[in-house]
């Protein structure tokens, strides 16, 4: 069983991830990538789709390919840009709840995702939404004070 660990910071679950352009990405699902930039993703079960800050979008870089109208909480219509990306996470292998390998293998999701662009902020580089989270089992480990996302591969 491979597990992604999310640290709890001020009661916010943060996970490290990396992103590449789907046009340049040809890695296998599991790889030992040491040259990828690590970004901070905030786990957000309320977000239907993952969002990247413009900092990540510009650094990767990603190509804008569309718009989508969104409604804000005060009923205002806004439009946000969409980008394709390949996203991955660092995982450890675990046997019977004991983490026996902290080599941090890089796990890339098999299919590219469409993400929204959002403004930069000081807390996170992305909102990791339910489009990604719903692919896996995830839970909160109270002893370790960590969110764990488990990959059944």
């Amino acid at each position, binding site marked *: 069983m491979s597990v992604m660990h999310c640290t709890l910071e001020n009661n916010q679950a943060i996970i490290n991830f990396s992103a590449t352009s*789907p*046009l340049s990405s040809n890695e296998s699902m599991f790889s030992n990538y040491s040259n990828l930039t690590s970004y901070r993703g*905030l786990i*957000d*079960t*309320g*977000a*239907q*789709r993952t*969002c990247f*800050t413009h900092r990540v979008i510009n650094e990767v870089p990603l*190509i*804008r*390919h*569309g*718009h*989508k*109208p*969104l*409604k*804000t*909480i005060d009923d205002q219509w*806004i*439009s*946000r*840009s*969409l980008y*394709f990306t390949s996203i991955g996470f660092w995982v450890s292998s675990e046997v019977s709840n004991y983490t026996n390998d902290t080599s941090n293998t890089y796990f890339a999701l098999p*299919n*590219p995702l*469409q993400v*929204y662009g*959002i*403004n930069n*902020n000081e807390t996170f580089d992305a*909102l990791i*939404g339910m489009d990604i989270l719903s692919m896996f089992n995830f839970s909160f480990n109270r002893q370790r004070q960590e969110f764990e996302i488990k990959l059944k591969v």
Partner: protein
Amino acid sequence: MSDQVDINFEAFQKQLPELLKNYEGKYVLLNNSKIISYFDTAFEAFQKGIKEYGEGKFSIQEVTEVVESLGFYSHVGDALHA
């Protein structure tokens, strides 16, 4: 100066009510305000757009009326507002 995404989005929005009748759930590839073709997935449309027109020379729109939510954080924070 408007780019392909902005120009095509304006044209797409005007055609959306008509498109919903026959193409709901599909993804359209657009170039110069014109619909080129329809796809089952956005990435298929993206690959076709890259191959035929190159980066930044096309756009893709989903034929849907469904509005997505980016969650509580995006509302209370400043993530969505410029």
